């Protein structure tokens, strides 16, 4: 973090060439701090109750391509998330069983395993839960998981495959269908590209123009404040000023401050996934840059993490696009075959601290795991420059702080002992675990 901050500060003051020379004199790799933010993770997180196995993944892959999951047997997941098209459909808005255009653009599924919430508006909180939506959406697959399970259970080869994938509970059920599909989707990790080789230390893996593009991405363009991590997303929701009337995250969580906010998409494999954005409105990366330069609609919900005015020269534009293109494979992308992709690691929260005040800072809860004594209240203070929110969605407590502006705090009382998971509805990568004694 330190090195990156220094770098960004320098980038604002000095011409690029000076930075290069200075940095080289001071440290062997001026980008070391930044590169750290983009290192490949080395494991795929999965929920403790759905560990991946080769059998489960194979079943999931088969289900993904099977049209029997739809009402009339015409549409599979792969009809819209076509593996030949990098798990997209290449349409502005796709069509399902009814032939009616869907409300939003079909996203690619790259790196969905790393996304705490799914869909452009984050309405599903796990890949397992997500599966219900397309199967049951009247315009997508128009069926139910129950119907699909009954249909599949009549097929002997499927019964064998479910037995191999779920030896403890081999019934063909909505639960096992969702579990297998989710396990397969977690393997859709975007493969390493030249950019990863550069991050790993191969200095000539990127051209000078591409490196200049990365510098713009991290500096002047401020893209890095949202597109960060090996998958180039912080998994949060922002209004970047696209003009359609879709309220996105705001409608989903009933919070006007999050109106027109959509999930930051991954920037991996973009060369293969046009068109772009939740509404599919931008056809090329040039169009995307033009959008960021023009700034989009200036409304109260427009993210303050966007540069107020972004002015790029023709050369800078070329460099930035050249950089973005290094995040795509040179040939039609296939899921990564890195050994860690098939393995995975169950997700676990950081160790707890005894604290009654938690701050929201730099899009994290700090600390991220607290322990309270019975009857103690928790205060959450917004120490950030952005609007936040505290959401707890639990059978014991349904809590929503509403919009919490910088310097505002909320106090939460917990009705009974237990573990509560809180998150920010706008920046759901902000997670807070509260243990109440």
């Amino acid at each position, binding site marked *: 973090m330190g090195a990156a901050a220094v770098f960004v500060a320098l980038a604002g003051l000095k011409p690029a060439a000076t930075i290069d020379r200075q940095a080289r004199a001071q440290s062997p790799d001026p980008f070391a701090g930044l590169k750290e933010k983009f290192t490949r993770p080395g494991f795929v997180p999965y929920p403790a109750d759905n560990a991946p196995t080769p059998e489960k993944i194979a079943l999931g892959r088969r289900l993904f391509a099977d049209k029997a999951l739809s009402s009339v047997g015409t549409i599979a997941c792969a009809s819209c998330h076509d593996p*030949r098209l990098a798990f997209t459909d*290449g349409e502005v808005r796709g069509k399902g069983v009814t032939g009616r255009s869907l409300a939003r653009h079909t996203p690619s599924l790259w790196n969905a395993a790393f996304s705490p919430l799914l869909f452009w508006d984050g309405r599903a909180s796990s890949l397992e839960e997500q599966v219900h939506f397309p199967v049951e959406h009247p315009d997508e697959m128009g069926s139910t998981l129950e119907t699909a399970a009954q249909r599949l259970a009549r097929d002997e080869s499927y019964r064998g495959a479910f037995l191999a994938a779920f030896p403890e509970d081999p019934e063909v059920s909505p639960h096992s269908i969702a579990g297998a599909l989710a396990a397969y989707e977690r393997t859709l990790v975007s493969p390493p590209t030249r950019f990863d080789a550069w991050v790993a230390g191969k200095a000539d893996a990127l051209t000078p123009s591409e490196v200049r593009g990365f510098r713009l991405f991290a500096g002047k363009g401020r893209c890095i404040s949202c597109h960060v991590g090996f998958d180039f997303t912080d998994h949060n929701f922002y209004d970047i000023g696209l003009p359609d009337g879709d309220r996105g995250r705001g409608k989903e969580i009933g919070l006007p401050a999050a109106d027109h906010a959509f999930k930051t998409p991954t920037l991996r494999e973009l*060369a293969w996934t046009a068109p772009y954005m939740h509404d599919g409105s931008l*056809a090329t990366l040039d169009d995307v840059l033009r959008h960021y330069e023009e700034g989009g609609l200036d409304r109260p919900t427009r993210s303050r993490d966007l540069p107020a005015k972004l002015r790029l020269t023709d050369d800078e534009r070329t460099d930035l696009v050249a950089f973005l293109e290094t995040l795509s494979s040179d040939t*039609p992308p296939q899921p990564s075959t890195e050994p860690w992709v098939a393995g995975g690691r169950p997700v676990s929260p950081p160790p707890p601290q005894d604290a009654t005040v938690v701050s929201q800072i730099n899009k994290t809860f700090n600390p991220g795991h607290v322990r309270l004594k019975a009857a103690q209240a928790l205060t959450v203070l917004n120490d950030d420059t952005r609007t936040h929110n505290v959401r707890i969605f639990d059978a014991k407590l349904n809590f929503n702080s509403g919009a919490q502006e910088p310097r505002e705090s909320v106090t939460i009382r917990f009705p009974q002992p237990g573990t509560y998971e809180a998150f920010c509805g706008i920046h759901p990568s902000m997670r807070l675990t509260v243990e109440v004694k």
Partner: protein
Amino acid sequence: MAKFTRKLWVGIGVATVASASMAQGIGAQDVDHDEMEHKAHGAPLPPALNGGANLNSGEGGEAYLTDGGPTDTRVRFYRDIELTRGHLLVGQQLIDLELWDEALPHFLHPTEELYGLMEKYIKLHNMRPFGRELKALAQTVKAKRKGAYERALKPVEQRIDAALGTAKTFMRPEQRFVVQSAIEVLRSAQSEYAESMENGVFVKPVEYQDSRGFVWRAERVIEEAAAGPPLLDADSLAKVRAAFGKLKAAWPAPLPPPKPALDVGEMSALISQIELHTSSMTR
């Protein structure tokens, strides 16, 4: 059969290029340009401009690759751009007929062969690459998705236009290059047409289609040039158009007819007429 016509093709190439006054004009400019390019790569200078005489007898690749061809990199690049466009054009015509499987080779060829030939020039002149865009387009054809195909076509066309725009800044006067490149494209068409036949019947529809796309492009290129400042008198233009009319009769549809409408000799005579009557544009 194919071998015979290829020889014939080379013969015409030498004769016409050697006799045309444009050879000298372009040759003079060409040296500077090529020298620049080859210095940049530390490679030896190419053989002096001598028409189609720098023959490689390598195997594989489309016929025009092994047939020598222009030594001026600008003409070669322009030709390859137009061959790419020709593939895309005939591919589009097949897609319009819902013949996706027939169309696919015309999207794979540019990515697998032509782009590789152009890439060095693209890098040298800092043009925006379009190899991956071509591959993405081919994927949409593999997937047989019209909407995705139409969307993927746009960035390819935009970048091809931009690359040719940059290349044209090295082509002065432009008309000469336009016409010479179009003639090269016609020669490639003739080669492919000859390839597509055995004993007077079509056996290779893909080559037949290639040649169709190429001729359609060559005509478009010449018409566009003719639409500019009048460099062609009305009489010559009428003769060029008449020759194209007769030439195009060889490809009544994107799929080969049961019997060839033109033989290779007739085709080469028509191409020579086009070359003759456009020669005033190359002065």
